[in-house]
């Protein structure tokens, strides 16, 4: 067992795979000797050299396109986008190309590629560097989407993502990079397997990314009121582990879905709709959804923290639900 930060765990996942497979390599803006904007690739340039840890020009379309072209011809690229927000610049390459080529070509090509993207707010980076764009990418058939919340999951999901033969979008929360946690093993986590972060019997909270931590804090606070919260982290947004959610609902019959996305049109809405459609008979109350306000993310710390949901919002929602 090792203590590791979330950033170190992501790096360790890449490192393990690069050591084993010469076809795994990394490229993106400033990922080389500079070590990446958030330091996630620090040291990899020294260990693996320029060929396998490459700085690219600031060209998001070319970064994603290079991942597609190299994945289609035998390599297993890991492309880093400096912020998930920059996905917009390379969106055609991701949505019309990476996601669809295999299908349009009748399965003739395979695209084993990982695109890493720091998302989320909390560092006063304002509206173009703080978004949670889960809904945009989970909406697209052909992509898989994962979003770890702990160092253990970050390492395991990175291994799982690199092993996967499909384009995997790997969302990282920038506020979690420095969060430390125990890493018990270096086993890949299969995509599509949720994790119960805390068992409970009264209400299920389904949370993603940093919101998993807020949900855990809320569950601590609610213990005083005798409310026993179960916290589920899907970890993989697509494929989604419906079974774990269903089992929890059979026990608690109440559910709160928490994501950091703008509430309108978020993936949290998709999870809520899925539960309402498929498990309505197991619900004692309507599904509760918590998200960010439907505003762009503001810069000023007071405004930003007001927009983003936190443990108090979760506590209040659960109290109302119960």
């Amino acid at each position, binding site marked *: 067992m090792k203590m590791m930060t979330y950033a170190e765990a992501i790096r360790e996942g890449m490192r393990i795979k690069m050591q084993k497979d010469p076809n795994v390599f990394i490229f993106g803006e400033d990922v080389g000797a500079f070590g990446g904007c958030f330091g996630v690739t620090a040291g990899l340039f020294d260990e693996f050299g320029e060929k396998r840890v490459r700085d690219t020009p600031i060209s998001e379309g070319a970064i994603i396109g290079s991942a597609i072209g190299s994945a289609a011809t035998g390599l297993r690229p890991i492309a880093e986008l400096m912020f998930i927000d920059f996905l917009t610049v390379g969106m055609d390459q991701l949505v019309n190309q990476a996601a669809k080529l295999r299908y349009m070509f009748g399965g003739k090509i395979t695209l084993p590629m990982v695109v890493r993207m720091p998302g989320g707010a909390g560092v006063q980076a304002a509206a173009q560097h703080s978004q949670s764009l889960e809904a945009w990418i989970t909406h697209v*058939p052909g992509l898989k989407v994962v979003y770890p919340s702990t160092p253990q999951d970050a390492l395991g999901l990175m291994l799982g993502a690199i092993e996967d033969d499909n384009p995997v979008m790997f969302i990282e929360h920038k506020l979690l990079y420095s969060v430390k946690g125990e890493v018990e093993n270096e086993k890949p986590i299969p995509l599509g397997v949720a994790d119960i972060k805390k068992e409970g019997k009264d209400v299920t909270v389904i949370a993603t990314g940093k919101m998993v931590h807020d949900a855990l804090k809320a569950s601590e606070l609610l213990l005083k009121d005798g409310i026993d919260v179960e916290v589920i982290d899907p970890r993989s947004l697509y494929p989604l582990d419906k079974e774990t959610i269903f089992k929890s609902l059979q026990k608690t019959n109440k559910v709160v879905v928490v994501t950091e996305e703008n509430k309108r049109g978020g993936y949290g809405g998709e999870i809520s709709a899925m539960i309402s459609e498929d498990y309505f008979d197991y619900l004692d109350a309507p599904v509760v959804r918590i998200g960010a306000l439907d505003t762009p993310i503001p810069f000023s710390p007071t405004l930003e923290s007001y927009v983003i949901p936190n443990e108090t919002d979760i506590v209040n929602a659960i109290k109302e639900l119960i």
Partner: protein
Amino acid sequence: MKLSNSKIVDMYKTMIRIRKFETQAMNLFAQGSIPGFVHLYLGEEAVATGVCENLKDDDYITSTHRGHGHIVAKGGDLKYMMAELYGKETGYCKGKGGSMHIADATKGILGANGIVGAGHNIAVGAGLSIQYRETDQVCVCFFGDASTNQGTFHEALNLASVWKLPVVFVCENNLYGISVNQSRHQAIKDISDRAVAYNMPGITVDGNDVFAVYEATNEAIKRARDKKGPTLIECKTYRHRGHFEGDPGAYKPEKEQNEWLKKDPIPRIEKYMIDKKIVTNNKLEDLKKEVDKEINEAVEFANNSSYPSLESVVEDIYTDIKEEVRVR
């Protein structure tokens, strides 16, 4: 550059294979046998032929919405192509892609593409992979004049140049971005001028002269295989039809069309072969008959094939997820 007679005959055959395939596709579309959109390569045959004659099976190409010619020239099978145009299960893409998305990984064909300019960066990725794996392959990226106004053109040429990737950028300047004449979509005449910005060679050739195209590409490919980096080749050509079938092309002045029809690459190579006594008129007729037979077989194959089963609609999205996507 001295080409053997048999090579010239091969090139001619590829050109008429494209011409006849496209003419047949035009007729089948008009009859209603081919659904969707069809963008024909008629008039541009010398480009794909001259370029691909230089390529090996394991070299890559990326193609465009007007891709049939590239695929034929790179060795694509007419039967599977025609079946794909019909939307049949025996087609290259099992009926899931259609005219704009034909790919054949075994022939290095990384796919036609329905988004203008989208192939540029994919070609760069293939070039990166070649450099990374240290093979002597090359990737040819085909694209039209209008796509050179997309940001992807700049991104791709910049990256290919700074990393010295083995990519040959082949611009088919057919004078029109859909209905808009080149003079109205960019303030330059020669697209090869843009190569200067990327510190790579840029050359303009007569795209209706298959030998000129062959020669320019030959040099560019040699350069790429010698690890000297990319080249931009502009081939000036003309599409005989509208942007897609159904577009009468009213925006193309009659005088311009007539002038270009006089430069049609196929009568041109035929005259060359007769003048140089490479073939007789009888031999030309025999070659045409051989190709007609191939085309007829392709149409028959497509006609006799079945439409895909509804089961298959969930296949080939992911390598490992199928039935889960069958939701309504």
